[in-house]
Every structure is written in C-alpha cells, then in structure tokens.
C-alpha cells in the first residue's frame, strides 16, 4: 500500500487519474484505502431543476447517484437514499450560498458545493466544501493568461460536539492544480501538482459554525496557495537555474579562467 502511494507521488500530477485506476486494477483489495487517500480532479453534474452545476464527491454519493446541494435531490433519482437531517440541511443551504459568494470573490468564477452529514458515533457533524475552477482562456480565466488551468479544492471539516460554548474543528484541505501557458518567448510552460495540509482549532461557537469553518478554510487556502507558489513552484524554478545558471552568473566566472 505504501508502495502504491509512493508510485502515485512520482507519476506526473496530470496523470493521477490513469495512475490511480491502474493501481486499483492491480490492487483491488486495497481499493477503499486508495480511494480515500487519493484525491482526483473533481467531476461536475448539472442540476437541471436548479439550473446550476454541482460537484461530485464521496460525501454526496449514495450508490451511483449524487445529491445536488441546490435541490437536495439525487441524480439519477434514488429510493431510500441518505439525506442530512432538516436542521443540518438548513445549515448546508446557508453554507452553499455564502460559500458561493466567497468563491466568487477569490475565484471570479468556478463552481462550489458544500455537503454536510451527521457523524454516527458522536453529536458532531462533517462538512465538505468543494471548489472547482477552470482558469483557462476558454473557461473562467479573466486575464487570458492560461492556455489550460485547473484548480480543485477539497476542504473536509470535522466539527466536534459543542461543549461549554466551544467546539473542536479539524480541517483537512487538499488543493490540486495545473496550469499551462503557451507564449512566443517561453513556449509551452506547464506546472502542476497537489498539496494537502491539516489545521485544528478550538473556537467559540458564538458567531456560528459557518463563520468558524469559513475563516479556517480561508486561512488554510491562502497558506496553501502561497506555499504552492513560493515553495513548490519556487523549487522547480531553483532547479532550472541549477541546471543552467543565468548568463550573468556565467559571465562573472570568465575573468577568473
């Protein structure tokens, strides 16, 4: 299993779907482990009734149907399906509305969905906030920089039961992204990758769960974006300069030799 994860970490990020399905066919006995530990680019379905798209994931799936957060209906329709309680559904509706605005502020487009469900063993619940953005010129890329661009964010928060007006929040965020520019001077330039982090906080429930969850997501998303940009992409840039140092450095060496 460790070897399987090792393989996934080395395969080009853009090929992660092919790599995962190859591993699933080689190791069917580990399929539930593999599926839960590996994230793939998010898929989307149309909710014709609400005239909106919604994101598919394990958390809104029952059998082969997926529940839309807008209409709360399964696509394709399913009998005896799982639904959140009416109270939780209220929170879910509000979360979807607010998160859509958050999404628009940061992503200037894209699709978002929020799903919530009760945990069996305790009185807490789990919420999953998803965002999918196509930043390419033909998609929602405002500046037309990208030939191809995809950002998939998956935030899963476990919210513990309320105790003395406080609650525990455990957030696991995964970002998958890929971008390609195709310009005259630099040719085809492509960066892609994925990163996952966790954040735990104990917060007062006074302003409501949504507020707490929202702030945590905003903070961690920001950190991950910066990390991807500065650390991760920065390291690849460093590597290019190591392979072939820019001309100025080379010229400085000449007087010595």
């Amino acid at each position: 299993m460790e070897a399987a994860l090792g393989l996934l970490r080395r395969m080009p990020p853009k090929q992660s779907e092919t790599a995962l399905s190859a591993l699933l066919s080689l190791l069917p006995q580990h399929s539930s482990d593999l599926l839960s530990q590996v994230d793939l680019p998010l898929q989307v379905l149309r909710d014709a009734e609400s005239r909106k798209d919604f994101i598919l994931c394990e958390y809104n799936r029952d059998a082969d149907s997926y529940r839309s957060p807008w209409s709360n209906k399964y696509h394709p329709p399913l009998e005896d399906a799982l639904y959140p309680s009416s109270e939780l559904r209220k929170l879910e509706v509000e979360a979807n509305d607010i998160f859509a605005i958050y999404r628009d502020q940061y992503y200037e487009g894209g699709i978002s969905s929020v799903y919530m469900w009760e945990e069996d063993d305790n009185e807490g619940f789990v919420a999953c906030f998803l965002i999918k953005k196509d930043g390419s010129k033909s998609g929602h890329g405002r500046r037309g920089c990208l030939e191809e661009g995809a950002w998939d964010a998956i935030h899963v928060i476990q919210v513990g039961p309320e105790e003395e007006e406080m609650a525990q929040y455990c957030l696991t965020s995964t970002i998958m992204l890929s971008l390609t520019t195709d310009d005259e001077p630099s040719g085809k330039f492509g960066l892609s990758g994925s990163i996952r982090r966790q954040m735990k906080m104990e917060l007062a429930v006074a302003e409501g769960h949504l507020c707490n969850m929202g702030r945590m997501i905003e903070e961690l998303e920001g950190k991950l974006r910066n990390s991807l940009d500065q650390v991760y992409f920065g390291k690849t840039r460093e590597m290019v300069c190591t392979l072939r140092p820019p001309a100025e450095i080379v010229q400085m060496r000449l007087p010595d030799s």
Partner: protein
Amino acid sequence: MADEEDESPETELSYDQKKEIAKWFLLNAPAGEINYVAKDLKAVLSDEEVYNEAAMEAFPVYNKSHMICIGRVIVSSYSEITENEYLDPRTAQVAIVDHVKQICTNVRPADDEELPSSYIEEFRCALDAEIQRYVSESYPKGVSAVNCVKGKDADGPGSNFEFVVIITAMKLSPQNFCNGSWRSVWNIDFQDESQVLDIKGKLQVGAHYFEEGNVELDAKKEFQDSTIFQSADDCGIAIANIIRHHETEYLAALEVAYSKLPDNTFKDLRRKLPVTRTLFPWQNTLQFSLTREVEKELGLGK
C-alpha cells in the same frame, strides 16, 4: 483498463494487461526516478516475471527518451547502433549497455562502417568541440554529443548531411525531494545545393519537487534558424553561437514566466485576496443578502 472476461465479479488482470500497466509506470517516471518507481512497482505487482519483462521493454525506451549517460556515452536514438550498442563519436568507441541496470557492460572500438567519413568527421569534430566549450561554460552538470544521422559516408562537397546535437543535464537530489533535467536536441541539416544550414531545435526542461506534496514543471519549446554553409571550423562556431543564443533567450523567458506567476498567471486560478483587499466578512450575514441582490442585479455568476 478493461477486463477481459466477465466470469467472476472481480476478474484477474491478464499477464499482458499487468505488463502494460507496469510499462506505463516505468515510462512515466520523472527524470532520474525510474529506479524508485521500479522498487515500488515490484512491491505492488508482486510478480517478478511480469516486472522483468516489462522492465526489459520499458527501460530502453525510457533511457533513450531521457538521453541518459551510461559510461561516457549518451544513450539516444541518434547514437543507437543496436538496442544495446551506442556510439560515442568523440572517442570512436561503442558502449554495450544493460538498460535495466543502466550500466555499461563492455566497450569496443567502432567499426569503420559505423563511423562517418573523414570529410564528415571534420565538420562533426569542429562542431563537437564548440558545443563542448559552450556546455562546459553554461551547464554545471551538462554533457553533449554530436552524431551524424544522415549522409555520413559522403567523401567530399556536393552532398547533404545531417547532424544531431544533444545537450543534456540532470540534477538529482532525492534527499531534498527534488530532481530535474534539461534536454536539448538540435537538428543541423547541411544543404549542399542552397549552401544553407537548416537548424531546428527542441528543448525540454523538467523538474519534480515532492516533499509533502507533488509538483512538476514541464516546459518545452521549439526553434528554427539557419546559417550559411562554410568551412568546418566556421560552421562549428556559427552553429554553437546560434544554439547558445536561443538557449539563453529561452532561459530568460522561463524566468519571466516564473516571475509573472504570483501576481498574474496564478490569479486566473485564485486571487491572493478579493478585490476589496480584505478578508471575507464571514460574520456579516446581513451583508450577504445585500451582496446577493447586487450580484443578481449585475448579472454576475454563470
């Protein structure tokens, strides 16, 4: 990955299917990482026979496409004599290699038929020397080779011939979770009738950083240029200058692409902050209802 039969709910993959999957993993390993991939793959497959056969088929293709250096020869389709024999024109020797182990098992002098004529060799050698000088100046870990891929038996002026210049550099730091490679392939077509050298270049740069994450750079560019057919020495200098010029420009362009990332390119995916330049006001629910009205009015969203 379709299953062959539908006899049982969980059909076993056939030998060939497993082999194709194994080959796919090996061929897609980033530069310098095929042995790590091989190790993990063996564990996942737990079938030595399938692995060995897949390795025998995949390693040569991988080694040639990454143009790895085994012994002192660059293994590539341009220097290939047979699948296991590769020519080093500089020393007129042929290295016999074991692809899977990525080592040189033997060296023999090249036969006359494997080498270019002395007329061609004059041009090849001059160019090789200039390229070597350029590479040692610009690439801390670079190696180069010049192979004649067409017309190597021409014994005097009046014929066309073609060289391929290969420049490769690899930096492997697995302990720092970072590996990278640079590959340049330049085709130089010497055209006797027009007395012109047609030059076509393909550059490919890759980098992989995987500490608590997984990020890959994949950059490519193609070039076209030309120069006049001169003496062997002058051709060598002219070609090397053209290559140096384009590669330096490309590197600068890559730097520009990287510097535009944080404030421009990345923004098309996700901004650093909203247009308001403040964090999102989560606690203000009333404001949301207003915002929603405004958004509807402006016709924002899809």
